């Protein structure tokens, strides 16, 4: 879908027509309408095929970094799925492999030293691990948009933001300079930049952090991607701006039907934004489930710990924040054990001897990687 969605939703004759902000823009919108119509028809035809499959299926994805100290198992046999239009949270401590997972999905892991060593990533029916680098490049920015953590450093300081937004629209959608610029203006106002047309020629340093992240979102959405990878999009922003940016991501993804993988270490954000959550620890997914279910009934001690460490409003003032004891393991020396065992208050011998697998808890939607809650063996609770 394109940014003309707004116009299409306006039902002629309904009171909404009166809200059309700018009548001068109407002819432009109408001329796009036919193209939009054709696109819609094609989309409907696709819809049936899509219902049968997921937008994204990741199977046994492993990414390793080959350093002089040894092989770092940054992402270790990660598998998950994502529906069209779904928002999935990827949650965990720093260094647990969230970002590398996201980079691996677009094959952007810096090589050397990084390498995707195994796995399949089926995106919209295509295994992107089998694509040539040129085919992969065409997917990036067009079908998969990326929002990075720090908007201060993620925008090019020597190029105008108008150029940086229009650039991928020109490349991927084959728009003329003029059309790409119009599209960039549209996107800018959509992400909430006032006086968008006047600000096209401004440089990133002329924007505040929150505004820059809005620009980043406009860049990521420039070609109306099916999947948006948001890697800690609000970590570098102050709290009031965080809420605005998250709300923006949510409303735009709803509007465009974009699926989102939201990487965050903030469980509150995950709870508010996501349909489902994957908890990652030491390069592995340790628990996955529908967000309410997982937050109410976590089945893995690390997920408990994470939830417990959230500061709570109903707590007595002055009580200490709870933390998870110890440090995440070093990912060079990984063995056949539960990686959380050294920090786990419930660990038993089996946790150090054998690696637990992601298995079902309560239902097929809730999986956890823990001997202690493994059905038939559970000793926790």
């Amino acid at each position, binding site marked *: 879908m394109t940014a003309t969605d707004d116009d299409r939703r306006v039902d002629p004759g309904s009171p909404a027509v009166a809200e059309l902000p700018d009548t001068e823009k109407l002819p432009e919108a109408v001329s796009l309408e036919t193209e939009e119509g054709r696109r819609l028809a094609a989309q409907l035809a696709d819809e049936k095929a899509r219902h049968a499959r997921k937008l994204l299926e990741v199977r046994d994805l492993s990414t390793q970094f080959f350093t002089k100290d040894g092989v770092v198992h940054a992402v270790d046999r990660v598998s998950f799925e994502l529906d069209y239009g779904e928002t999935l949270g990827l949650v965990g401590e720093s260094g647990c492999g969230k970002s590398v997972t996201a980079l691996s999905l*677009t094959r*952007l892991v810096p090589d050397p030293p990084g390498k995707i060593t195994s796995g399949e990533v089926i995106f919209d029916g295509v295994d992107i691990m089998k694509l040539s680098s040129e085919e992969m*490049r*065409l*997917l*990036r*920015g*067009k079908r998969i*948009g*990326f929002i*990075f953590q*720090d908007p201060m*450093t*993620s*925008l*090019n*300081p*020597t*190029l105008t933001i108008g150029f940086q937004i229009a*650039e*991928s629209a020109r*490349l*991927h959608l084959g728009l003329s300079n003029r059309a790409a610029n119009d599209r960039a203006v549209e996107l800018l106002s959509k992400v909430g930049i006032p006086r968008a047309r006047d600000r096209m020629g401004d*440089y990133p*340093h002329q924007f505040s952090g929150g505004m820059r992240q809005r620009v*980043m979102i406009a*860049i990521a959405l*420039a070609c109306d991607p099916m999947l948006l990878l948001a890697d800690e999009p609000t970590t570098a922003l102050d709290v009031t701006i965080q809420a605005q940016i998250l709300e923006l991501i949510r409303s735009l993804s709803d509007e465009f039907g974009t699926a989102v993988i939201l990487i965050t270490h903030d469980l509150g954000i995950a709870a508010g934004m996501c349909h489902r959550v994957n908890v990652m620890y030491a390069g592995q997914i340790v628990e996955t489930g529908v967000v309410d279910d997982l937050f109410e009934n976590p089945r893995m001690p690390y997920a408990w710990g994470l939830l417990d460490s959230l500061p709570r409003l109903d707590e007595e003032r002055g009580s200490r924040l709870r933390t998870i004891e110890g440090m995440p393991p070093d990912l060079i020396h990984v063995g056949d054990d539960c990686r959380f065992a050294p920090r786990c208050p419930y660990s038993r011998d089996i946790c150090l001897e054998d690696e637990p697998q992601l298995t079902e808890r309560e239902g097929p939607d809730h999986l956890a990687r823990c001997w202690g809650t493994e059905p038939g063996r559970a000793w926790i609770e």
Partner: protein
Amino acid sequence: MTTYIIRRVAWLIPVVFVVSVITFLLMHAAPGTPFQPVSDRPLPPAVIERLEEQFGLNEPIYIQYVNWVGNILQGDLGPSYRIRGRGVSDIIADNMWASVQLGTMSFALAVILGIPLGVIAALRQNKWPDYLSTFISVIGIATPSFVLAVLLVLIFSVTLHWFPTSGWRGPEYWVLPVVALSGYGIAQVARYTRASMLEVTRRDYVRTAQSKGLKERSIVTVHMLRNAFIPVVTILGPLLAGLITGSFVVESVFAIPGIGRFFVDAIFQRDYGLIMAVTLLYAVLIAVMNLVVDVAYAWIDPRIRYS
């Protein structure tokens, strides 16, 4: 920006004044005068006295300075004390051009070869193009221009007869001196460009550019080069000034009628007028180059604005 440039140009006046005073004092503090060089056959005292009177060298030094300034302000650079019958203005006018040509062409070569060398080295870090480029850079920096000049003459003039050994009469005369003089510049520019490109490669906005699915070539040319160029520009101004003013050795090897030779001779011969004129010329040149660099910064990096 215009105000800024005007102010910077106005600043040239005090700079030139200070440089001229220091040069004037140092020059006179050095033993000997134009007519009493340290290691020359001495002239009879009566002759020296008459010559000094004729050129005003018997006056107190501050009077001499004031006189010199007065002449300068009237556009008169004064006579050469050693080259009979020629004014300093003539000498400079006749010889400056060859130095400027040599320096500018060497500079252009340094930029045209140095930047691609550095870029290629950075993009193929620790692969053979990088090693080759580093090898060329080390050679370029370690080899003095006169060694390079003599080697070039030996190979391309004496042995292969491709280019003339000396002179400055046309394009075929330019090749060897320009190559000899630019060796150091190429190496310097390549090294800076490589380091700067490697730095930029790791920047977040390059990852953003990759995530947009841009072609490798436009990532390099549109997103990286301009940012990588900012530190390189810093060395380009002094490099150009240095190539124009510092070509004395190469001018000597190739018998090029440049100003460098006159400058060095003038110092040895205490040719006061010529020393002063060339020094000031160089001072202005370097100051202007620095201004050009600063303006170029603002043009390349939109974050820099002068007021």
